[in-house]
C-alpha cells in the first residue's frame, strides 16, 4: 500500500519568499477577477484601468509612491519589532499619535528656520509613535502582558483621542461639518521632488537602509535576534533580552509615528481621521509577506501603494474599494500556501 508522508526540506530555496509572493499575487488577482465577474465587471478592463491610473503617468505614479510611504515606514517598524519575535499590531494608532505629536509641537513652538522646523516636527512624529507603543512595551517587558492584544487596543484608544481632539480642543471652526484640526502653515509643508512625489519618499528610502542596517548588519540587530531566540542563549551571551525588546519596540513604534508625521506634513496638512486609512493594518501584510525583510518591504509597500490608489480610483466605475484590500490579504494567504511547498516535501512511502 502506498502512503504519503510529509518531510521538512533540508535546504529552503533562498528566493522562496519572493516566488511565494509572486504566485500568491497571481492567486490574489484570480480571486479578485472572480469577485469582479460576480459583480458583472470585466476584470481585464478593471485591472488595466487600475494599472493606468496608478502607474500610467508621472502624476499617478507619484501618488502611488506617496501612498506607499506610510505602508513602508510602518512595515519597517513592524519588521524591527519582529526581530525580537514580538508583534506590533498598533501601527495604525502610532501613525495617528505621530501626527498628533506633530500638531502639538507645531502649535506650541516657534521657529524661524523652516527646514529646522520641519526636522523638529518629523522628530516629534517619531517620538509620538514611540510614546504610543510605550504602554504595550512596558507591560510586555515588565509584566509579560501579550503585546498583540495591547498594541491592538491602543489603536482604538488613540483613534478615540484623535476624535476627541478634532471635535474638542483642536477643532477648526472653519472646517464646519467635517471635524478636523486647523491646517498647519505652508512653511512646514514637505516639498515635492518630481511631480507630486513627496520628499517623504526620500526619507522612506533612507529609513529602508537604516532598518536594513539595523536589522542585518549592526551589533544591535544581532543582539535583537539573540534576544528574540531562546532565553537561555541570551543569558549565556550576556544580553539583556528585555532591554533589547523594549528598545526595539520604541524604535519600531517611532517608524510608524514618522509615517504619521509625513502624512500630515505632505498629504492632509492637518489632523483629521484621514491621517491613516488602515495603513497600519496593510503594513502588517506588507511586512509579513516579505518575511520581515526591509528591502522587500520597500518593494511590496510600493506595489501595495499603487494597488490602493488603483483601488480608490476604480470607485468611479462602481467597483468597491475593498477589492484592493481583498487582493492584498489574498496575496498573503496565497504566499503562505506556496511557502508550504518550499519548506515541506510530500513523499510517497511504501508501508509494510
Amino acid at each position, binding site marked *: 500500500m502506498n502512503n504519503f508522508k*510529509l518531510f521538512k526540506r533540508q535546504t529552503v530555496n533562498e528566493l522562496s519568499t519572493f516566488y511565494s509572493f509572486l504566485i500568491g499575487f497571481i492567486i490574489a488577482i484570480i480571486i479578485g477577477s472572480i469577485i469582479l465577474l460576480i459583480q458583472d465587471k470585466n476584470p481585464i478592463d478593471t485591472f488595466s484601468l487600475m494599472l493606468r491610473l496608478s502607474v500610467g503617468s508621472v502624476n499617478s505614479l507619484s501618488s502611488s509612491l506617496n501612498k506607499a510611504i506610510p505602508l513602508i515606514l510602518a512595515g519597517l517598524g513592524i519588521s524591527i519589532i519582529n526581530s525580537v519575535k514580538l508583534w506590533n499590531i498598533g501601527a495604525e494608532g502610532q501613525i495617528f499619535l505621530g501626527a498628533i505629536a506633530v500638531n502639538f509641537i507645531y502649535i506650541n513652538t516657534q521657529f524661524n528656520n523652516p527646514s529646522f522646523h520641519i526636522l523638529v516636527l518629523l522628530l516629534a512624529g517619531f517620538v509620538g509613535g514611540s510614546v504610543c507603543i510605550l504602554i504595550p512595551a512596558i507591560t510586555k517587558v515588565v509584566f*509579560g502582558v501579550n503585546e*498583540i492584544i495591547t498594541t491592538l487596543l491602543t489603536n482604538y484608544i488613540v483613534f*478615540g483621542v484623535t476624535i476627541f481632539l478634532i471635535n474638542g480642543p483642536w477643532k477648526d471652526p472653519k472646517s464646519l461639518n467635517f471635524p478636523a484640526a486647523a491646517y498647519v502653515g505652508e512653511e512646514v509643508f514637505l516639498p515635492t521632488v518630481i511631480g507630486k512625489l513627496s520628499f517623504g519618499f526620500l526619507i522612506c528610502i533612507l529609513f529602508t537602509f537604516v532598518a536594513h542596517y539595523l536589522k542585518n548588519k549592526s551589533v544591535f540587530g544581532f543582539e535583537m535576534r539573540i534576544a528574540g531566540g531562546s532565553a537561555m542563549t541570551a543569558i549565556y551571551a550576556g544580553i539583556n533580552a528585555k532591554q533589547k525588546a523594549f528598545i526595539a519596540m520604541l524604535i519600531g513604534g517611532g517608524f510608524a509615528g514618522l509615517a504619521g508625521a509625513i502624512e500630515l506634513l505632505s498629504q492632509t496638512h492637518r489632523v483629521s481621521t484621514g491621517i491613516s486609512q488602515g495603513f497600519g*493594518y496593510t503594513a502588517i*501584510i506588507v511586512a*509579513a509577506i516579505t518575511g520581515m525583510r526591509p528591502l522587500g518591504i520597500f518593494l511590496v509597500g510600493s506595489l501595495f501603494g499603487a494597488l490602493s490608489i488603483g483601488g480608490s480610483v476604480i470607485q468611479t466605475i462602481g467597483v*468597491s474599494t475593498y477589492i484592493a484590500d481583498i487582493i492584498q490579504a489574498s496575496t*498573503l494567504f496565497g504566499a503562505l500556501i506556496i511557502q508550504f511547498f518550499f519548506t515541506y516535501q510530500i513523499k510517497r*512511502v511504501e508501508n509494510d
Partner: protein
Amino acid sequence: MIDIQLIGLLNATLQAATLLFIAALGELITEKSGILNLGVEGMISVGAVTGFMTAINTENIFLAVLVGVLSSSIFASIHALVTVVLKQDQTVSGLILTILGLALSSLLGKNYVGRKLVTKLESVSSITEPSNIIEVLISQNIIFYLAVVLMISTSFVLKRTMFGRRLEAVGEDSKSSDSMGLKVAKTQFIATCVGGAFAGLSGVYLTLSYVPYWTDNMTSGRGWIALALVIFGGWKPYRTALGALLFGFLEALVPRLQTYGFELSPYIVKITPYVITILVLVILTIYKGGKTGAPRNIGVPFFRENR
C-alpha cells in the same frame, strides 16, 4: 423598589456580555487545541453580514442564523487550512483573516447599509418593560439562553467527554498525543471551525438583535476584546463568562455615566473599555505570576518528524 435605570443597566450588561462571551467561548475551544486564531474580529464580521443579508432576503430568521454560523465556520477553515494542514505561522494567518474578513464583509454588505430588518431575533417572553431582576432574566433574547447552554455544555464537553480530553491533550502536547494515536490535525481542524461557528453566532446576534442593522466595521474591536477575555478567563468557560459579564457591564455603563451625573466627553468615555481591558490584563498577569493557564502548545505548528 429597584431603580429603573439599574434594570436598564443590567439588561444592557447581559446583552453586551452575550455578544462578547459567545465569540470568546469559540476562541477558547480553538485555543484549547493549540491553535491561536487572531481572526475573531473578521469571523464575527463575516457572520454578521451574511446573517443580515439572509434575513433581509428571505425574512427567515432561523435560516439567517444558520447561514451566518456556517459561513463564519467555512471562513475559519481558511485559517485551519493554512495553519493546521500547511503549518504556517498562526499569528500572521489570524491577522490576515481579520483584515480579509472585514474587507470581504464590507464588500458583501455594500448594498445592505442602512436597510431595515423585518424580522429580528426576538426575546422569548412577552415582557417588554422588565421591572425587577427576575423579569430581566426571563425576558432576554433567545441567544442569551443559547449562550448559557453553550457555556454549560462546553465546560462539560471539555472536562467529561473523550472529545474534550483529546482536544486538551492535543493542545498541551501534540507530539505525545500523536504517538498515542490521536489525530492531531483532525482535532485542530474541527476546533478551529467550531471557533468560527461560535464567532458567527456572535455576529448574527450583533446584526439581528443587538444593533440591529449593518454598517462597515461595526464589530469595532469586540473580536479583540473576546481574545482578551480568553486570557482573562484562564481558558475556563465559567471564568470567561464572568469576564464577559464584567466587560459587558463596562460597555453598558459607559454611555450611562452621564445620566449618573459624571460630566465626561463622550469621545473619552468611548475609549474607557479599551483602557480598562489593558489594565485588567496587566493586573491579571501580575496576579497570576505567569501561570496563565494557557495550553502549552498554543501557536506551535505540529509536525511529525519522519525518518
